[in-house]
């Protein structure tokens, strides 16, 4: 990638470094939220394209991470919502039977289990339990209070444990 703008030249960290470090995490996070691995990668590319375009306003690597995750999660949620709004799934054109390219049962089982969570619960669980964000950062990304994130997180974890047949943890 050719990065030679003045704005980028003044940054203490390079876009390439951030991309190399964060793209896989953002792509896999989006994939879990959308329950679609290919879409996760596509969404992450879009998120990093937008990150590049505003690189002169990115103050830190945490800022870059949060921006990319926010865009990716919002795109994934938008995709889900718009797909849900179009009831083609009743008839076939939009329905997915199974992921023919699935390389592991682990993905299929977890992707199926995540379907039991509401979109917001899913985002909270994935961002905290996979992307290692804290509830304050998730609240910032989603535009909701950290206390609300904790409610969605607890409910989402409860549903996910049930779907994966995992025992309940003591939530503190």
């Amino acid at each position, binding site marked *: 990638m050719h990065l030679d703008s003045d704005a980028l030249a003044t940054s203490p960290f390079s876009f390439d470094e951030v991309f190399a470090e964060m793209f896989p995490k953002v792509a896999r996070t989006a994939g*879990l939220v959308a329950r679609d691995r290919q879409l996760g990668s596509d969404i992450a*590319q879009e998120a990093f394209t937008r990150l590049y375009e505003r690189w002169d306003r990115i103050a830190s690597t945490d800022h870059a991470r949060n921006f990319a995750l926010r865009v990716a999660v919002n*795109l994934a949620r938008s995709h889900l*919502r718009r797909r*849900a709004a179009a009831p083609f799934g009743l008839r076939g*054109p939009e329905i997915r039977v199974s992921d023919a390219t699935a390389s592991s049962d682990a993905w299929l089982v977890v992707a199926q289990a995540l379907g039991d969570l*509401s979109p917001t619960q899913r985002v909270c669980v*994935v961002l*905290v339990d996979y992307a290692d964000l804290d509830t304050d950062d998730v609240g910032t990304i989603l535009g909701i209070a950290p206390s609300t994130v904790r409610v969605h997180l607890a409910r989402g974890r409860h549903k996910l444990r049930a779907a994966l047949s995992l025992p309940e*943890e003591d939530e503190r």
Partner: protein
Amino acid sequence: MTGDPRLRDRLQVAAESYELDTEAARSSVAVGVQTRQRNRRIAAFVVVAVIVGLLVDAVTEAPFDHGMPANPSPSVVVPPRTLSRGHQDAAILGLDGSPIGRIPGLPADASELDLSPDHRMLAFVTADGGVQARIATIQVDGTHLRMLTPQNAIAEQPAWSPDGSRIAFKWSPDGGHTDIYVMDADGSNFTRLTRDPFEDSAPRWSPDGSTVIYVNAGTRRWKDQQFLQSPDIYTVPAAGGHPTRLTSEPGPDLYPDYSPDGTQIVYRHGDELRVMNADGSGSHVLLPSGSYFAPRWSPDGERITYGTYSGSYRPNVGFEGTKLKRPLLILHVLDVATGASSPVGRTGFVYDLNAPIWWSNDAILIRRVGV
């Protein structure tokens, strides 16, 4: 709140169970950046050209400066143009599919159009360069684009009230399930009409403006891949109040729209296109098992438009920064009295929420896609 190591392990194993081509992704990002920079330069040039063109038009002929009649002739809008395959425009078509005019100035990702009763304004959905669907309005001459809903929540499916003063829409301010809201046509005074814990969508007004009809996703759990399993049709007073359920037969009930006199509702039940009385009684089949999407009643009540699914071509249409292949629907018109139905030329539209709009009894406004 502490994490659950077993959940973390399961998520991590699943998420990292497949390979990512990071190098290819990085190349795609670079290409995407360059493409957008080029498109912005082209867009800037086009904007300048359009402004110059509008100025010239204003000097020679300014039909919108003198006010539009309540039901203007389609001839006052911008002339149509040839539409390339996969591209979209907002076209006004005769019932034989011949283009009569078009609405200029819409964002490239505009969808879910609805026409104000005085034919002066369009409400629609756009991401406006952001990441969330928002509701906006624009004059039919392509000017005065105005974003109505805030940036931080997805708002969709705008529907003008019969007096043009309000817009019903579906919204989820907190990112959860959507409810039906109404706002003034200038984007003020948001009022929530429904409060159930399920997805509410597809609002439409009764012709007298007293009631909003909508689809409730039902009591089944909402899943993005097994969604809307048993949606039913409800009404709710436009001023607020308790919803009334109109349908309860097994099977999905979707796409409600009032007849112009307000006595009947056209909708899809399962695979059938049906009509019922406005109180939910007297449901009967209008068209037997088939593929019917987004029916809309003509102003004189004699015809109904709808889309039928065509699996042969899935246009790649952009929205919210992504391009996704969308199902293509072919526009049809049904004669209510005879039951005869025929396609409107080879007119296609993508996405079932881009319902066709009756511009007059003899013309349809549609967000069409080149096929």
